[in-house]
């Protein structure tokens, strides 16, 4: 197997691994090992390009593998991405609000205070149309936003046992 062939196979497995990221680590390792070993065998018969092409697209294979597990899985990666996006969007809003408040403080040559959900902003102005400081004080409650995004986008309730498997009310 040439270096290019090894690279081609590794690249396929990396992409597959990305798409099965929601599976438990042990199961991911099993899938990678099995596919890697068997594809090397197939490559002896039909070459690496053919063997890799025969596996299909990594995303489709990953979806089939996840579906074959027979239970809905949380999307940790998607949850983490949406948590980061929601936090970044909130920070963007806070910064925009702060700049607006600072502009107002400079224009009025006076201190201004305001608040955006979970954050207190104070713009301290000097007398000569200049700004001394902008103070931001965050409430720990703002962490609920990325946490909620992580839970909702990551569908973490899938970690709970299905309703039908839960113990019912005790019979007398």
């Amino acid at each position: 197997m040439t270096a290019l062939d090894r690279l081609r196979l590794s690249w396929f497995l990396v992409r597959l691994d990305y798409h099965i990221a929601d599976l438990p680590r042990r199961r991911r390792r099993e899938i990678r090992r099995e596919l890697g070993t068997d594809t090397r065998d197939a490559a002896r018969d039909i070459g690496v390009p053919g063997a890799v092409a025969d596996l299909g697209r990594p995303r489709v294979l990953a979806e089939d593998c996840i579906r074959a597990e027979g239970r809905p899985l949380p999307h940790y990666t998607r949850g983490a991405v949406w948590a980061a996006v929601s936090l970044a969007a909130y920070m963007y809003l806070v910064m925009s609000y702060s700049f607006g408040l600072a502009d107002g403080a400079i224009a009025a040559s006076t201190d201004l205070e305001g608040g955006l959900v979970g954050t207190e902003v104070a713009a301290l102005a000097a007398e000569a149309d200049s700004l001394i400081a902008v103070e931001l004080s965050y409430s720990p409650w703002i962490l609920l936003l990325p946490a909620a995004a992580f839970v909702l986008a990551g569908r973490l309730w899938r970690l709970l046992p299905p309703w039908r498997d839960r113990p019912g009310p005790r019979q007398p």
Partner: protein
Amino acid sequence: MSVMPPHDTARRDPQLLKGVLPLLLLRLLAAQESYGYELVVRLREHGLEGVATGTVYPALTRLERDGQVSSRLLASASGPARKYYRLTERGYTALRQAEGAWHSLSAVVSALVSTPVPTAPRTAEEKTP
């Protein structure tokens, strides 16, 4: 009218194959313990050249999840250990049921598709009550 040869893999519907793949895998594993790629090769040797390797692994995962096959790692002379699959007791039961279902279905389908195709379908008015 052209007649499709029995082993024309180019025209074989992949969805049909996907539907019977678990039965075929169980049948092959009943004859011999095998690893994933070996099963693909054996399927192709039986005339299913169109079977894609990527469809076999999820099917094996399902069978293993349902307890119809078990697996073990065996050292290989040519590289890392391979994952071999073998039938379990539940797998033998499932195989018998699947074979029965297949024979029943194929008998009905064969009887239906072996009747000559009329040149034009009867209209609703021509239907016998």
